[in-house]
């Protein structure tokens, strides 16, 4: 049927031999080189690739939004309903944007103007491109807000972005992009920043809207789960080139190129592997752990109180990985920070051996600081850019009395262990890729000789192929050092692969807790079930592990 659709009608977008040059000094000459693909009406084409593959540059080239000084189209064309947008004047481009091509972005939190009412931001498109009077504009805005299923449009139209949830903001973006029924919708990672349940709703909405309005969609993503959920056809990009394209099933089930095969294989399966229960000594135990933010005072009796974590109980044995899974705001990071004593819990106990460190003052806490180390989510921001990685790694051990020479020697050893050259210790963080930086963060944590390693979304910012390697590294060091690992993640696939046991959190409460195999095979709590249902590309994961 796909062939019938695309064959019978002219494509809404036809990219031919598009080449965009990078500024001098980049790692390659062209951001994208000689790429060609078509998008038909009512068709969703997923552009998949890892970071730096040129997917977003492609989208910006079509929209005419490339930063002029840095990125220049040097060849090829992007024909939008026959009209080449790379050669259009800026005036013509402005006419086309919003009317024939609309775009939505990754971060709904930042993609809306924070000081303007959301209704106004949707109406802006009408104001630019039509002569509709204000009253008519408002009517149209309310209509489209209803169409994207926003609750209570009459109230929400006058709200500001910060008063809306992430999913609602993305709906506003979609409404603004689609209000004039453009032929092409470009969606640049539109669900990456959203929780899985919200992601599932937004994906459904995009699908519904485009099929009702005959919109062709260029859907940029790095997530194969999403691809398997939404794509009609798939274009795989690597380092600026198209490596493979075809229908969804061709690319996902029978990839031809080695790169595609590697990418597909790197996606963690939703089916957990068999794991023997860990019998080691208990490294850390949390009892009735709670954290409450906000406090009512005499002057502020209506202050908001947030129970970020309530009555959380778990123990982690040496050599064991406990996963805490949940959506944003579930309290999983709060628990991690309490355990690491970066913040003080409001109530409850954190037992290391037999000592309760939950409320120790900083002075008495110090000896325990080295027992618990954290690796954070964003490797770009968790290393001090002004210090060499060597300095970052030896800092902790030296603080705890190790001599410089000894710390340096240990750092060299650890660099080897995490798969980096010991000679790289003199370099600065910006000279490393994201995956390498995360390895450095792991080396830094290990330098302290911890008994518990907390990984707070430690692989979430990484590309799938890199993610797989870092996960393997984490698993290896766990075995080698008999480490207890507290693994915080929102990603069910990752959790399935690395965790021995899983605690599912929602609104500060652990709703389900069991071995990974049990939780995945037979989830008990409604919320856990909903999470699994929302995971994109469920069939894709299952297929994979069976194959």
């Amino acid at each position: 049927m796909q062939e019938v659709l695309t064959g019978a009608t002219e494509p809404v977008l036809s990219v031919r031999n598009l080449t965009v040059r990078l500024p001098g000094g980049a790692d390659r000459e062209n951001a994208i080189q000689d790429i060609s693909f078509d998008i038909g009406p009512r068709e969703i084409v997923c552009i998949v690739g890892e970071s730096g593959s040129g997917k977003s540059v492609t989208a910006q080239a079509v929209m005419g939004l490339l930063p002029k000084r840095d990125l220049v189209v040097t060849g090829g064309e992007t024909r939008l309903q026959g009209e080449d947008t790379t050669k259009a004047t800026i005036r013509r481009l402005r006419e086309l944007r919003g009317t024939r091509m609309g775009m939505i972005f990754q971060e709904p939190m930042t993609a809306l103007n924070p000081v303007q009412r959301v209704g106004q931001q949707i109406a802006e498109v009408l104001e630019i491109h039509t002569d509709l009077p204000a009253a008519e504009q408002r009517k149209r805005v309310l209509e489209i807000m209803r169409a994207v299923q926003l609750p209570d449009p009459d109230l929400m139209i006058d709200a500001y972005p910060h008063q809306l949830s992430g999913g609602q903001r993305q709906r506003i973006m979609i409404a603004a992009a689609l209000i004039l029924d453009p032929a092409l919708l470009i969606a640049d990672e539109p669900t990456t920043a959203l929780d899985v349940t919200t992601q599932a709703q937004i994906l459904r909405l995009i699908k519904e809207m485009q099929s009702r309005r005959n919109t062709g969609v260029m859907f940029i993503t790095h997530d194969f789960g999403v691809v398997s959920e939404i794509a009609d056809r798939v274009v795989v990009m690597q380092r600026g080139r198209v490596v493979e394209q075809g229908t969804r099933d061709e690319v996902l089930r029978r990839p031809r190129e080695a790169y595609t095969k590697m990418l597909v294989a790197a996606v963690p399966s939703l089916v957990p592997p068999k794991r023997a229960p860990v019998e080691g000594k208990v490294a850390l135990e949390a009892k009735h752990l709670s954290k409450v933010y906000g406090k009512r005072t005499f002057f502020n009796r209506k202050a908001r109180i947030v129970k970020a974590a309530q009555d959380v109980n778990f123990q982690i044995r040496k050599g064991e990985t406990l996963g805490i899974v949940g959506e944003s705001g579930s309290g999983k990071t709060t628990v991690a920070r309490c355990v690491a004593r970066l913040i003080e819990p409001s109530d409850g106990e954190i037992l290391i051996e037999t000592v309760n460190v939950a409320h120790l003052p900083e002075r008495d806490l110090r000896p325990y600081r080295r027992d618990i180390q954290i690796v954070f989510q964003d490797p770009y921001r968790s290393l001090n850019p002004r210090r060499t990685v060597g300095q970052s790694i030896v800092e902790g051990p030296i603080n705890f009395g190790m001599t410089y020479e000894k710390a340096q020697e240990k750092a060299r050893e650890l660099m080897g262990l995490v798969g980096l050259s010991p000679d790289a210790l003199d370099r600065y963080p910006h000279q490393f890729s994201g995956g390498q930086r995360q390895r450095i963060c792991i080396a830094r944590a290990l330098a302290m000789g911890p008994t518990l390693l907390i990984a707070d979304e430690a692989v979430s910012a990484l590309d799938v192929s890199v993610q797989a390697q870092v996960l393997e590294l984490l698993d290896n060091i766990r075995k080698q050092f008999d480490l207890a690992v507290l693994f915080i993640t929102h990603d069910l696939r990752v959790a399935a692969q690395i965790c021995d046991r899983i605690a599912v959190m929602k609104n500060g409460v652990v709703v389900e807790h069991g071995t990974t195999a049990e939780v995945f095979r037979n989830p008990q709590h409604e919320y856990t079930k909903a999470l699994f249902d929302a995971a994109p590309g469920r069939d894709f994961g299952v297929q994979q592990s069976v194959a």
Partner: protein
Amino acid sequence: MGGYILRRVLSTLPVLAIVAVLVFLMLRLTPSDPAAIIAGDYASPEQIEGIRERLGLNEPILKQFIIWISGVLQGDFGESFFYKKQVAELIGERLEPTLSLSVITILLVVLVAVPLGIIAAHNHGTWIDRFVMGFSVLGFSIPVFVVGYILIYVFAVTLDWLPVQGYQRIREGVGGWLLRLILPAMTLSLVFIAFIARMTRTSVLEVLNEDYIRTARAKGQTEIKVLIRHALANAAVPILTIIGLTVAILIGGVVVTESVYTLPGLGLLTVDAVLARDYPTIQAVILLFSFAYVLINLLVDVAYTFLDPRIRY
């Protein structure tokens, strides 16, 4: 919001109280004698002593303070040693030139600096940007009195377009009033234009990298509207903060500018009062200045809520 404003206004009281005590103490601790100055060079010690007695300067400091502060609390700032007038009346006369100068300067600063900053940010990295920034460095580096005299030399002495100095009351004609304020306002505004243009450029540049700017462009919005409606609206809070500070610093700046242009405002009054050790006048003027500072800060904080809906008190 109402409660917030009330709390803020109440919180100014301790500030003003501390200022009052400090000013009073500092004046009494300076090694000079107003009575001697009033009496003149040929006065006998008895005459000076008589004046001291009359002004109440022989009382213990605490008693002097209580007399003064209870007067202030009833709205009576005392009589000037030097001008032989009620201080309140004196300040009333001098308020108009200073207010006129400040308001015109601020208008000039905002109307020139903000567009300049936006233009520089929009043309980031081009010669326009470098020109604006170069001008801005120049504006910082030249002292106010040098600028003042250069402008007088060029526009008043050489070209004879504007009067050299002096002031005309607004009720005697808006034209003459404005004409006499142009040079002082230009002098005073230069450094602030430089400063605010730079700040505006930085804030707008930062905002121009935000995702919602890209969103606006993706809707087909024109560049000018992207700059004003989306960029400037979001850069407004830091810019306003600086403008608020500017107003505060301006009050200090008028002291110099009014001296250069002999404008009969509060700045000149302050200088004269200090030279004459005119305690009641100095105390009153400084209290007034600090009250103005506090008030401006409050206004700026309240204005934030109108510029950014995320800020609520």
